């Protein structure tokens, strides 16, 4: 152990473990990552984990059981900084897309029947900031290497990570892609946080929003724009809901109100 190094823990709640895997996939940088920080806990990478006090934790996954609530609260207590990594931790993930609690219960029954969960009571999936204070967010499904290494390096060098509050359209334009939205294709780029390098559009596929909603996204305008272009409203809502977890619940309520 090294006293000068930032003590880091990487924890996984409910998710596909894709973000932890992506960190391991930084093959060229992996040795430097372990050299630069004192990684105390990272169950995907090692077995001698110590769950003590930490400077920074990176938390992947959404909260979907009561045990995870306790685990998360304990992590928060032990760490100076909490960073939510990946779509599940930042917005709740695909599993959080049903926002109405009654609907969730109904769906739960449909899938599991009347099975009683002995292990730990299940909860409707939520992003981690529903339970604890989050200091920084690193979105993406899974997170991107470039953004991860940038955030990680800033943390270990004692500089606060920067926010990336721009939509996918910015990088999309930097890459001089022809705008799909202007060709009447449902593209969620304007509503989605940047970080993937406009990956899909650069392959002539529309953005489906996997980085989650960007701060200040104008959902209403794009919703009506797509409606004017002739898309079915249920289809638009489904597309918008896919990767936005609980974060745009208010918008869906508003649209419902307007319909009445």
């Amino acid at each position: 152990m090294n006293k000068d190094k930032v003590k880091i823990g990487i924890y996984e709640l409910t998710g596909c473990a894709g973000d932890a895997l992506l960190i391991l996939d930084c093959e060229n940088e992996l040795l430097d990552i372990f050299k630069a920080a004192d990684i105390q806990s990272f169950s995907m990478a090692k077995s001698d984990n110590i769950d003590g006090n930490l400077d920074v934790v990176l938390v992947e996954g959404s909260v979907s059981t009561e045990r995870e609530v306790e685990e998360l609260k304990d992590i928060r207590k032990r760490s100076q900084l909490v960073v939510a990594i990946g779509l599940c931790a930042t917005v709740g993930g695909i599993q959080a897309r049903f926002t109405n609690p009654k609907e969730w219960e109904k769906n739960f029954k449909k899938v599991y029947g009347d099975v009683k969960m002995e292990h730990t009571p299940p909860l409707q999936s939520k992003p981690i900031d529903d339970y604890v204070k989050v200091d920084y967010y690193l979105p993406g499904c899974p997170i991107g290497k470039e953004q991860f290494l940038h955030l990680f390096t800033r943390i270990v060098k004692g500089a606060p990570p920067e926010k990336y509050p721009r939509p996918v359209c910015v990088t999309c334009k930097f890459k001089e892609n022809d705008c799909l939205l202007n060709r009447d294709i449902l593209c969620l780029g304007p509503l989605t946080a940047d970080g993937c390098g406009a990956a899909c559009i650069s392959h002539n596929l529309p953005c489906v929003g996997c980085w989650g909603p960007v701060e200040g996204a104008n959902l209403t305008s794009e919703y009506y724009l797509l409606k004017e272009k002739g898309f079915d409203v249920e289809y638009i809502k489904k597309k918008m809901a896919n990767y936005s977890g609980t974060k745009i619940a208010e918008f869906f309520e508003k649209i419902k109100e307007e319909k009445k």
Partner: protein
Amino acid sequence: MRIVKLKQKNLNPFLEVISENTELWAPVRKYTDRHVFAQVEDVSQIDVDYTRTILPPRKIFLPPSFNMFTATEKEYKENFSHATKKILFGIHPCDIHGLLIMDQFFNYVFEDPYYTQARNNTLLLGHSCWPDEHCFCKSTRTHIIEEGYDLFFHRLSEDYLVWIGSSKGDDLIRLMPDCFEEKLSDEDIQFYIRLREQRNEAFQTEVNFTAMPDLMELKYNHPLWEKIGTACLACGSCTNVCPTCNCYNVMDHPQLKERGSLIHRDWDTCTLQSYSEVAGGENFREKRSDRLKLWYTHKIQAYISKYGKPGCVGCGRCIATCPVDINVKTVSQALDGKDVDAFWNRLNKGEIK
């Protein structure tokens, strides 16, 4: 200034000769019907039959994202790798005017070395064009070019009339002197004059710029701004495609392995929410309407009082790009009191069913 004549079939051989030891950048096709400026290895890739590229040529002088310098406690290493010697062929009058505005801006108080070095290392070879439905450079008086180019190629039916605008341009001509004729026939001259008149009449979009500074002032608190703010997606596309936008952000990228940082410079744009956020989290232009008002003040009012001409060169990129029809055309028409046919207007009127 001198005007010479070149057979169209001699254009590519000429470009090949002059770019033997220099990067050649020119419009090339992307997708079926879009164009971008790109470095060309083979002159047959060049497509002069284009109207506008997706990004303006300023991307060549200040790339959307680049490393300005590397800094450690001991050392400071500048990076000018983007400022290589180049020939930019095929640039239209509006875009040359765009660069002239950038020249003024980046030398206004202090010289910006990253821009200036790349600019000084690049020869501009312009090419004539024909307006489509979005072009309105006649309204900004940027449809013709009198300065700022090294060579300018006016296409006639079988020949080019080539304007020589600088001694460097003249040096290029001298690399293939046999291809250029000094003597122009009366027919050539008449043809050119007629073409010029026909082009002037081909413009389908007009914007009344003389009225704009006053209208901006008079309508500063007009509901129009809230209306366009309601529709704006804050996607940043209008500003990124504009040939005269020049804002940027500078960000430290500390290095994991070594000590020190790369200092990156990225295009930034005032239409994004983060643009006006300052330390402590305060955002003095949190509303989209305030941000758009800033942009339009800049383009059609403030520039006119500072530089005597609008900060818009009429290239039509914002018209072709904004998904919700917020652009210099619809905004100026709305300022003029017109009920425009635009998504943002239909959205506000509740017309979308």
